[in-house]
């Protein structure tokens, strides 16, 4: 227990559900989107959350942003439970950077670039003159021209706008930056530029990233460790090189195969027990009944009954 508190970010047993109105009857039903996710991130590390759409990765980011509240479990940033301690939670929220998927909807189209980038500093109460100075410094750092400060978002291309958003996310000198598929909406050359920028910034200024993506290429380039999500469960976690060369969980194997452009066919998931029960090659009876608990192997985590004989370290 004490070891885990030394880490910068701790997510413990997170359960988040959405309230959905029932279609053919009155009332609501609660659908679990994130089921028992736990992981930790150290300072200056980039943790990648990999999974398909519907796996709950965006919801976890929303929980970090305090936009949805988990009904069980907690998130600790620098040993502060961001939900229990509301005042501290709000202070920390001002020092987190956010980069989301679509650059066009992440900025107010009526504001000039310099106002957009200076906004987090205004939330922290910084004087406006100083804020604009800092904006200029940082824009030069990411390789953008100072002239764009007086332009509007629609005058910039997608790649430049995403770089502006990255600048906005780092201007408050955050310790944590949340990246929600930052390159999915961009084309190849711009993608490469943004990824290089993110990696350079991390190496230079020692940021901590939590990166959500469905593309293993992106995860491999920036992340140190990866957590694989399947239908709300964190089924494998480990160093990125190890996961791509020797995946343990069958679902991870499927994802790595698909990354190498092999045909994995249509995946249909079961609703009880392990979601991979219907298509798993190594399935046993217990896989259809119960979801396996996290099993620690060499410092990594796997949730699969196949490894039930490994001793818990």
């Amino acid at each position, binding site marked *: 227990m004490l070891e885990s508190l030394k880490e910068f970010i701790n997510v413990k047993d997170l359960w988040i559900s959405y309230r959905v109105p029932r279609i053919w009857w009155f009332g609501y039903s609660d659908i679990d989107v994130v089921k028992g996710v736990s992981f930790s991130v150290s300072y200056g590390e980039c943790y990648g959350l990999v999974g398909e759409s519907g796996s709950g990765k965006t919801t976890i980011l929303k929980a970090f*942003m*305090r*936009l949805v509240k988990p009904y069980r479990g907690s998130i600790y940033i620098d040993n502060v439970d961001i939900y229990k301690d509301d005042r501290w939670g*709000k202070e920390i*929220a*001002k020092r*987190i950077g*956010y980069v*989301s*998927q*679509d650059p066009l*909807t*992440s*900025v*107010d*189209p*009526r504001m000039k670039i310099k106002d957009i980038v200076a*906004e*987090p500093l205004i*939330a922290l109460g910084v004087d406006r003159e100083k804020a604009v100075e800092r904006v200029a410094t940082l824009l030069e750092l990411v390789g953008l021209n100072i002239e764009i400060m007086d332009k509007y978002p629609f005058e910039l291309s997608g790649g430049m706008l995403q770089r502006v958003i990255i600048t906005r996310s780092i201007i408050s000198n955050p310790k944590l930056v949340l990246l929600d598929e930052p390159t999915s909406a961009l084309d190849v050359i711009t993608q490469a530029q943004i990824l290089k920028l993110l990696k350079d910034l991390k190496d230079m200024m020692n940021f901590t990233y939590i990166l959500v993506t469905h593309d293993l290429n992106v995860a491999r380039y920036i992340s140190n460790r990866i957590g694989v999500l399947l239908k709300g469960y964190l089924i494998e976690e480990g160093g990125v090189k190890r996961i791509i060369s020797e995946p343990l969980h069958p679902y991870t194997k499927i994802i790595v195969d698909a990354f190498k452009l092999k045909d994995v066919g249509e995946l249909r998931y079961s609703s009880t027990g392990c979601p991979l029960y219907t298509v798993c090659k190594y399935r046993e009876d217990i896989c259809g009944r119960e979801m396996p608990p996290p099993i620690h192997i060499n410092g990594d985590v796997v949730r699969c009954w196949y490894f039930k004989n490994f001793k818990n370290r």
Partner: protein
Amino acid sequence: MSGSKVKIVLRGFLSLLKTSRKFSIGFTIVAIMVILSIIGLVKTPYHLEGWGIVTEEAIKRQGLAPCLPFNCPSINHIFGTDDMGRDLLSRILVGAHLALIQTVTVVIISITLGILMGVAAGYSNTFIEKISTYIVELFIIIPSMVLAAAFITIIGRGMQSVLMALILTWSPWYGRLTYILVRQIRELDFIKICEAMGFSKTYIVFKHILPNVAPIIFVEGITDSSSVLIEIASINFLIGVASLTSIDLPDWGMIVGYGIRYVRTFWWISFFPGLFIALTAFGLMLLGDGLSETSSPWLKRRWRLWF
């Protein structure tokens, strides 16, 4: 700060005049009406009061004999005279400022109330949202004339009943429009990021939501002002509601109403004010259309015939 903003607005306005034909025509028509209304306030060719109220001083002031009733349009009276011998041109000129001021008042107040309601409904908790949408839907059903008639019975004659009835009819419309827009904007990423950064709801509303919503509503308001004008004229036509100050200050609709009995023979009494109503409404509509076209340029693409 505000000096440069005024310059930007002015420059945008001038470029709009140059590029959009609709806007320039509409603006010209409305400008002419404004000039006419100013003339009407300052000096009219003939005195307003007619046959029954003419006095010695009036004759001395004007230097003319009282007009004969039912004159066709002639050199002395360009638009003719009405049943009481009053010069129609003068009455129309005075009615101009009434029409414009009433329209502008209704539109501005409805837009303000509508935006307030819409933002309150779209961005607060579900309770306020439910109540606001309920009130909006309630009032949207009631047509303006029925409401105006109700107000006149309760409050009495006068411009205030017409204005209140129209404001109550139109604000729910803008309220619902704003509500839809606010709901859409609320889902966008930049609002969520602001919420996550801890900005208060008031800040987000004033700095992010309103600047994005207000321009759309304003343009919609200008386009709707032509309908408002026609509604005011219709109410005045049917009910003959006079203005606040004097019983005889004629609104255009009222003049049409007075003359409708004689429309077969003395057609000019209804025709000319009706013409002015139509022209002003047309000008306002062109103004609004031209404005909204520039913000969505894809409407202006010319389409080739395919074969």
